[in-house]
C-alpha cells in the first residue's frame, strides 16, 4: 500500500474517533509540526503546547478534511500557524514598529551565511522582534505572499513588506554582531 493509502485509512479511522489512528497520525506529523512551531515560539515548551493545541484542533475538525484534496500535513501546519498567530494576537505580542528604511546597503557576498546551521538561524530569529520574526517566517520560510500575510495579521501588504525589510536588516546586524563579522567583510546579505 502506498503512503497515501495508509494515510487515507488512518484518516477514515480517526474520523470515527479511533485513538490508535489518531496516535499514528500524530506520530507521523509531529516532527514536522514541531519544526514549524519552534519558529513561532520562544522555546521548546511553548512549541510543544502549540503542537498539542494544533493536533487537538485538527482532530476536532477532521470531519471536514478531504484527503482527495491533499495530504493532512499542510492542513495541520496551516492550523498550527493560525494558532500561533492567534496566540500572538491574544497576548498583544505582535507590534510592528515602523522604522524608516534608508537606502539599501550594498550587498556583500560572503560564504559565512552558508556556514550558518539551522540552530544558528533559529537563534538569530529568536532575537528578532516578534512581528518581524512572524513576517519573516511567513514570507521567507512558509512562502506566503504579502497580501496573504496582511490578511492573516490584519495589516496592509505594504506594512508586511516593510517589516520584512526591517527583519532582514536586523538579521544582518545580528549576524555581524554575533558572528563578529566586520563591516569591511562581505556578508552576502541582500536587503529587500
Amino acid at each position, binding site marked *: 500500500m502506498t503512503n497515501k493509502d495508509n494515510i487515507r485509512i488512518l484518516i477514515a479511522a480517526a474520523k470515527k474517533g479511533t485513538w490508535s489512528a*489518531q496516535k499514528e497520525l500524530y506520530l507521523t506529523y509531529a516532527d514536522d509540526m514541531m519544526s514549524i512551531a519552534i519558529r513561532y515560539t520562544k522555546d521548546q515548551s511553548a512549541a510543544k503546547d502549540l503542537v498539542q493545541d494544533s493536533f487537538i484542533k485538527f482532530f476536532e475538525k477532521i470531519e471536514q478534511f478531504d484527503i482527495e484534496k491533499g495530504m493532512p500535513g499542510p492542513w495541520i501546519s496551516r492550523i498550527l500557524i493560525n494558532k500561533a498567530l492567534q496566540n500572538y494576537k491574544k497576548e498583544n505580542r505582535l507590534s510592528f514598529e515602523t522604522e524608516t528604511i534608508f537606502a539599501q546597503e550594498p550587498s556583500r557576498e560572503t560564504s559565512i551565511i552558508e556556514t550558518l546551521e539551522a540552530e544558528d538561524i533559529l537563534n538569530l530569529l529568536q532575537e528578532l522582534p516578534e512581528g518581524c520574526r512572524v513576517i519573516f517566517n511567513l514570507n521567507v520560510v512558509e512562502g506566503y505572499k504579502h497580501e496573504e500575510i496582511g490578511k492573516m495579521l490584519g495589516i496592509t501588504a505594504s506594512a508586511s513588506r516593510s517589516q520584512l525589510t526591517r527583519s532582514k536588516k536586523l538579521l544582518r546586524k545580528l549576524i555581524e554582531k554575533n558572528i563578529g563579522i566586520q563591516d569591511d567583510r562581505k556578508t552576502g546579505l541582500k536587503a529587500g
Partner: protein
Amino acid sequence: MEKHFKNKLKQHKVDWDKEDLLVGLEATLSKKESPSKWKWLFFLLPLLLMVTCWGVYKNDLTETTLGDLATAKNIDENTAQKEKENAITNMGLLPKNNTDNANELSGHSITQSTESVSKTTSDTKNHNQKKDFPEASNYAGKSSSTNINSDKENKVPTNLILNMDSINQLATVPRASTAIPETIIKNTETRSENLSTESLILKQTLVEQISKDKTKQAIITRLFVNSENFLFQELKTDITKNGIEVESKYKKKDSEPKKYTFYAEPSFVAGLPQRKTKYTNSDPTVNAQLEANKNMETPKIYSAISLEFGLAIKEKWMIQIGVEYQGVRELFKYDGFYRSDTTIAEYDKSSYFLDAAMDTVFFAGMRPYIENKDRKIRHWNTFQYYSIPLNIGRRFQFNKTAINTSVGISYAFGHDFFGRNNIIKYDGTNQIIDNTVFDIKSRFGFQVGIGGEYQLSERKQLFLKASLRRSPTFIQEGYEQVYWTYSLGFGMRYFLGDHY
C-alpha cells in the same frame, strides 16, 4: 540568504520527545469525542419526552374525570338490588318474594333509601300538579346524605360513595324555580315504579348543569356513549330535548375535528434495497476493478424500526419526528481458499515414503494430511444507521379508513458496518477484510410514502404504508454508496390527547 535560511529551517528537525504529548492528547480527545457522537440524542430526547409528557398529562386529565363519573355504571348491582327490594317491600308495593319487578330497577345506578322511596308517590304527584320543585335542592341534599349513611352501613363499595359525592356536587346548585321538562314527567309516570323522586331531582339538576357548563356537558356526553344504563338513557333523551347534542364518539364525520392532536407512532418497515455506487478513485484501473467486483455484495433485505411523535392538524395534515433504526443486510460472496487443520484419515490404499536409507516403505492405514479447498464463501454483512426522520403527511379520510401520503427527510446521526469487504489495492490485488470503516458523506436521506389507515378505536389507528427511501451517502476508499429501498411498513398510531 532567504534561500539558505528557508532550506535550513525546512530541513531542520527538532530533537524532542514527541511521545510526551500523547498522554495529554489522548485525554483531551477522549473527553471531546464522546458527546459529539450522540449530541443529537441529547437534543431530541428532551423534546420527545416533553411531547410525551404533555400528551400523557392531557390524556390522564380526561380519563380521570371520565373514570370518576363512569364508576356510576360499575356500582355493585347486588347491593343496589338488595336495597331496592327492601325499599319496595317496606312500601308494600311488592311481596317479599317477588323480585322480578325489582330487578327492572337494576338498570340505574343510584341507590335508594327507605326514607327517600317513602316520599316518592306523594312527591311525584305534587310535581305533576305544580311542575316545579320549591325545595328541590335541600331535598336532594338530604336524601343523598341519607343514602351515603345507608351505604356505609351496608358496606357499599367505595366507588359508589365517590360517585354519589360527584353527583351531589352537581345537584347542590339551587334551581328552585326551574320547571321539570315534560319528558321527565312523562317518563316518571310510565316508569314510576322505577324512578324515585330523588332520581328525578338529580336528573333535572344534571340537565341544567350540563346545559350551563360546557366541561360537564362534554363529560356527561362521553358517559352517555359508554352507558346503556337506564337512567343515563333517560337523561340523554332529556338533554337532547334541551338542545344539547349527544353524539356518538364514532360518528366522526358529524363532529368538528380537533385542530391539534398529538400522537405516537411505532412502526416496522421491511423492503428490498438497491445499492447505487459511484466510483471516485483517481486511478481508473481501480475503478474498473471495483466495478468488476461489485456483484460480490448484493443488498438483500432492508428493515427499519421507528418511534415517531407527531402533530395532526385538523386530522388532515400531519408533521412528525422521531428516532429510527435502519439496517441493510447484504450477501457477500467470494471465492475463498481454505486450508484445514491437520486431519487424520484412513487410507484404503497403500501409501509409501522413502526412509533414510532411501528404501521405499509401503504401509496402509492412518495418515495425517492437510486438506486444501476452494470454497464459495457466503457471508451476511450488516449496514446499520440511526436517524431522525422528519415527515409531513396529508390524510384523506373516508369514514373509518383514510389514505395517507407523506414526504420527509431523515438525518443520520450514527452508523455502523459489520461484515466483510473486498479491498482493491493499488497494486491490483485485493484483500477480504473484516469490519471496514465507512465514513458518511451526506447525512441526509429522504422518503416518500403512500398508505392506508384503519380506525381501530377512538385513539388507535392501524396503518400500512408503501414507501421509497433513500439512505444517507456512505463513502469507502474510492467509492460512494447509497441505498434506495422499496419498502412496506405497518404500525399503529396512538393519539395522546383528546382526539375527538
